[in-house]
């Protein structure tokens, strides 16, 4: 069925900083990762998208993401709360979530894993390193990694 996670190719980027958004999109393009990327700009919007509520009510099921890139410091609802909520919902409990953020504070890393993040990546300041990080991330999570069928 089309709702199978493995069939979806969409990447959901949760990012409030337009510069970071632009750089991330550039990095994906640089690495020839052609998957469609949907950007949401705060935690509340991310949850609406994932749970198909609010303005995303009745969105096309083919836009179900295969991977979520989640920033932690977000307007309205923080990244960790988003993570906890989507891990609590059956439809998204196994959805791969990579925390992609600026900080490398211990508490952020620990809490991310505690609430069920699959990976924690700190965005390097150097663009060339960031580029490389996105390349490896795409390779791993979009090509190598296997996910179960959605319920």
């Amino acid at each position: 069925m089309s709702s199978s996670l493995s069939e979806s190719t969409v990447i959901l980027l949760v990012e409030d900083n337009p510069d970071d958004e632009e750089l991330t999109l550039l990095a994906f393009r640089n690495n020839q990762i052609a998957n469609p990327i949907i950007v949401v700009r705060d935690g509340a919007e991310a949850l609406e998208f994932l749970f198909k509520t609010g303005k995303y009510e009745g969105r096309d099921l083919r836009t179900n993401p295969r991977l979520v890139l989640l920033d932690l410091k977000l307007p309205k609802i923080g990244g960790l709360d988003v993570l906890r909520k989507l891990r609590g919902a059956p439809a998204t409990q196994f959805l791969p979530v990579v925390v992609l953020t600026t900080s490398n504070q211990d508490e952020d890393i620990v809490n991310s894993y505690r609430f069920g993040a699959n990976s924690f990546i700190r965005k390097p300041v150097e663009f060339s390193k960031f580029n490389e990080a996105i390349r490896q991330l795409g390779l791993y999570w979009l090509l190598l990694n296997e996910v179960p069928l959605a319920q």
Partner: protein
Amino acid sequence: MAISILQNISLIISIAVIYHFVSRQLHGRPLIVSALNGALFGSAAMLAMLNPFHFATGIIYDGRTIIIAVAGLFGGPLVVGVAVAIAIAFRVFSIGGTGYLAGILSILFAAAIGLAFFYWRKRSKKPLDNWRLLAIGYLVHIFMLIAQFALPDQRWKTVLPAIIVPVLFLYPLAFFFICRLFIDNEERTKNLAMLKESEARYKLLFKAHSSIMLLIDPDSGQIIDANPSAEAFYGWTRSQLLSMNISEINIQPVDQIKERMKQAQSKNKNIFILKHRRAFGDIRDVEVFSSPVEYSGEKVLYSIVHDATARIQAENKVRELNQTLEQRVAKRTQELQDMNKELEAFAYSVSHDLRAPLRAIEGFSSLLSEEAGKTLSESSEHYLGRIRYNAKKMSQLIDDLLRLSRISRQNLEYSKVDLSRLAREIAAEMATRYPARKLSIFVQENMVASADKALLEVLLRNLLGNAWKFTASIPDAEIRFEYMDRDGQRIYSIVDNGIGFDMEYADKLFSPFQRLHNEKEYDGSGIGLSIARRIVARHGGRIWAESAPKKGATFYFTLGGG
């Protein structure tokens, strides 16, 4: 003869009474007492001789031997001396007759024997028991009989058979009973003296002492006695106090006082902290030590009162201060916790928000240089390079600052840390990372400290890393990590023979972002030693350095109690 002896005995009994009366009244003037008592015994002997048993003209028998012997035994030399003088004078001048020599001899014998036992008693301190008294009585009267051989014309042949029976049966017995009378009297006098002494002692212990003392009837609470210190303290006179009940002084309810007194009676040692009212209208905090004692045959409470007002007030103040101190500490702790939280929030926000713009600066500069690289002049390319370099550098500085602040904020977890092993592990790691470096590292054995292991690792990594870094240009580089104990304190040292530094800048060494060497030659942001100092400070220790340019450097540190 028996009747005259009885008369003599009654005479002596009355003397005994007068004798003791005189002794008591003129106590403290022994010479006069002895003279008077001597005269008394002498007069008694005289009276005895006036009432004799006439054997023949000039030969009389009476109780003088008993009187004189008693005078010697109980009165001593002066008493018996006076008595003997009077008796002999009377016998010779007033009575005279043929028996006077025997009379004088019997007086002298009695005096000598009495006096002998007087001294014996004084020296041996033994009591005159009944058998001894009888023995003395017999001795005196055997000598009296012997004195009869001094009668003229061998009159003893007729005298002795006539008097021997009464003299040997009645006289010693009479002597015995009179002596008992004297001994009883003596004992009474002694008891009286002891009583007086104990009264004096009581006076000394109770009246003269500066402690406040009260005797209280435990059943009624009535004050039985109070010493002058109590008068001075309470402000009531003794007679006022003696008319008062303790409940008029103790401000507690009466039933509680009764309870206390019951308790004090049953236990030997009681200490109460009470409040006592005084005549001055004030109330003092007192400490009362109360014990049940026997007083004039009654059980009473003997209470010693200490005015503890100043002490108890001080104690209350200390308690109050402690309480407010606790409150203040709690408040400060809360403030510190709030500040710490704020600092954490600040660090968190720095870590997220300050780095994001740097990433944009670096990212877009990098993209710009990529896209427009060919069209840009060399200097424009250089400027872009500087922008990107500084963005990276700032990002590094932020990371260092965050590391430093984390060390201040994180909790220490103490355990036994083997510094020697830790240092060797770090050295091995550095050696693997830079296999080209040739240097010898010496680490002293058995350096163990109670410390936070993770932080100590950071500390050693920084210090050994520094030593490693600043010996890079030295051909026979050497690093030593050892310790010494000085004044009971363990001082660790990390010694290198590297490029060293000028001691003039030694105080700047441990401030954040201070560098003593240029960045081109030796990389690093200059945060390492600040972190080292913070770690050492968190352990209650101290860190300092000694060096000279090109002479190597030594970093010393202590770890407080550990």
